[in-house]
């Protein structure tokens, strides 16, 4: 495999932008039709009311809030990982960062949509926003739902800018390589970027500040999402461990999402020269670490509840351990620990395929984990006469499926219109050829290994 030169890097990474295959249109049409079905389901729900969903007393939070927590968790893949690797100056981050940052932005957008879908009258969502209004009513700043608004808004704005700023030099590159309308559009997006020493210095300083600022924001976002639950006196919710437990779970599912996205891009955009096995190996190790951390949190939480033997909590505990939710609980344990642990711990199995299998399992497991946090507790509150069951209805299932299609569609469209790997960062760091990639024990020196 030859080492890509700077010119070849530009050609390879601009190819998807400048040439379009028929398969792209088929994929967009397929995903778009699923998204349209999801939108149709949402309008149907608005028209018919919430009665057509499975949401009913006492389970008022179900699939939609599960999806909200899940997608906000997936959003931790990008900006957080990218920021940490950027600050650590990890040489291997360069082809990974943009793939990751895009996931954050789209997952946040989709996640933030779910509280609105969950509203009976979504057109009044702006009532959540603090602004002086004729009703003289202001949001209650003591409510975790208002904290969500501030945290998600800050994270979304920060992540969008964190994604956009390093794209400016690449937009300038596309501007110079294209003609006609495309040149005009990318010219506008490039904001007149030229690449003077001053511009490079300012951009790199700004990215450093953004990286420092975005890490605590990312941690706060999922901590605050966990507060939606832990601030409520509901069995198995009112727990101090929920903040770090949710953050760990979010990073866990985020890395899994990133690995699946990177493997797909590598395959379909022929990025084998840029996304090397060592990238998957390193992310696989991070995934293994998060799997162990997640298992530790689950064990610590479950042991404390079991030891406390408080009746209302034990009701939820047993219904998930050996009751009606047990199949989901044990599937979650298998997907999040039993399956990924050997695959990621044994070096021979930690291949690209192995990482994708483990990550796919983790994505399923983490969605189930979110569901198991939301539904069993609401169905088994303190007084047994108020217990209830929940089963999802077609409209909820369709909307859920369509958000996965929407995420894929947005990602495909992004990869079509923007270089999915930061070209200038790749060139600046030097691109390690597979021959120069050191063994897994010395990958921290990757950046330096390249002459």
């Amino acid at each position, binding site marked *: 495999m030859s080492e890509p030169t*700077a*010119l070849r890097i*530009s050609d390879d990474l601009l190819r998807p932008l400048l040439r379009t295959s028929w398969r792209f249109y088929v994929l967009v049409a397929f995903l778009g039709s699923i998204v349209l079905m999801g939108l149709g389901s949402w309008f149907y729900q608005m028209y018919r009311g919430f009665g057509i969903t499975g949401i009913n007393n006492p389970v008022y939070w179900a699939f939609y809030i599960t999806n909200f927590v899940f997608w906000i968790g997936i959003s931790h893949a990008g900006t957080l990982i990218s920021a940490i690797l950027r600050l650590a100056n990890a040489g291997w981050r360069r082809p990974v960062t943009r793939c990751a940052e895009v996931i954050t932005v789209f997952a946040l957008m989709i996640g933030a949509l779910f509280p609105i879908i969950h509203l009976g009258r979504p057109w009044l969502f702006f009532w959540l926003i*603090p602004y002086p209004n004729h009703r*003289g*009513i*202001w*949001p*209650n*700043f*003591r409510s975790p739902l*208002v*904290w969500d608004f*501030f*945290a998600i*808004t*800050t994270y979304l*704005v*920060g992540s969008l*800018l964190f994604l956009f*700023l390093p794209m*400016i*030099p690449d937009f*300038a*590159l596309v501007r*110079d*390589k294209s003609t006609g309308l495309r040149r005009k559009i990318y010219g506008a997006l490039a*904001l*007149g*970027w*030229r*690449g*003077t*020493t*001053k*511009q*490079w*210095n*300012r*951009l*790199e*300083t*700004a990215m450093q*500040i*953004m990286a420092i*600022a*975005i890490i*605590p*924001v990312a941690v*706060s976002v999922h901590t*605050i999402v966990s507060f939606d639950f832990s601030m409520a006196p509901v069995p198995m919710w009112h727990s101090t461990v929920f903040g770090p437990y949710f953050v760990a779970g979010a990073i866990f599912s985020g890395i899994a999402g990133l690995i699946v996205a990177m493997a797909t891009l590598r395959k379909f955009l022929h990025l084998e020269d840029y996304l090397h096995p060592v990238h998957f190996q390193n992310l696989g190790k991070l995934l293994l670490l998060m799997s162990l951390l997640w298992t530790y949190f689950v064990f610590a939480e479950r042991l404390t509840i079991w030891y406390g033997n408080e009746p209302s909590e034990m009701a939820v505990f047993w219904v998930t351990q050996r009751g009606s939710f047990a199949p989901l609980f044990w599937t979650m344990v298998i997907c999040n620990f039993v399956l990924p642990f050997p695959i990621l711990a044994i070096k021979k199995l930690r291949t690209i395929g192995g990482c994708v299998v483990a990550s796919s399992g983790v994505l399923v497991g983490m969605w189930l984990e979110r569901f198991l946090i939301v539904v069993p507790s609401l169905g088994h509150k303190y007084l047994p006469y108020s217990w209830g069951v929940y089963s999802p209805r077609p409209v909820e299932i369709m909307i859920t499926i369509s958000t996965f299609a929407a995420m894929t569609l947005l990602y495909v469209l992004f990869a079509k219109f923007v270089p999915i790997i930061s070209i*200038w960062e790749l*060139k*600046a760091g030097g691109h390690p050829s597979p021959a120069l990639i050191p063994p897994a024990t010395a990958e921290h020196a990757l950046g330096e290994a390249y002459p």
Partner: protein
Amino acid sequence: MKAVYALYPDGASAQRAVDGLRAAGVAERDITVISAMPMEDYEFSHKDKATWIWWIASGGGLVGLCLGTWLPWMTETAWPLQTGNMPIVSWWTNLIVMFELTMLGGILATVITLLVTARLPGRGPELYDPEVTDEKILVGVKNPREGSVPEIERALLSSPAARLKTIGTP
């Protein structure tokens, strides 16, 4: 706009050109270097490095903190809810909003400073050559002084690989 510049295939020859321009008496602020990537291994990339952006970001964070303190405080006192003898202004919960707006202020101040100091979006005609995207490094002087052009051209051609170009007739 008038300009005289040359394109170089690598950082070393661009560095020689920058040194040559300095030796020819061209002021540091008049030398323009443009590249398709940051060239941190070369001395010329470190000019214009000094910046107030860290301080401005901190200032933005401070403004955000003030807003994040004022907004919940004002809301809680202007619309006092029944809190069962708990304090009306709830600082523990307000800390979350204060933190988020502090970070948002810092982030926005950073981006605005970047746009202003890097002159983005670009205003007016600027020295540029699209060949920069083909890995060439541009070193040049915009609007050179009368009579200084021959000396600038000599300095730019100090490297044999240089390709001299002009904009207008300087």
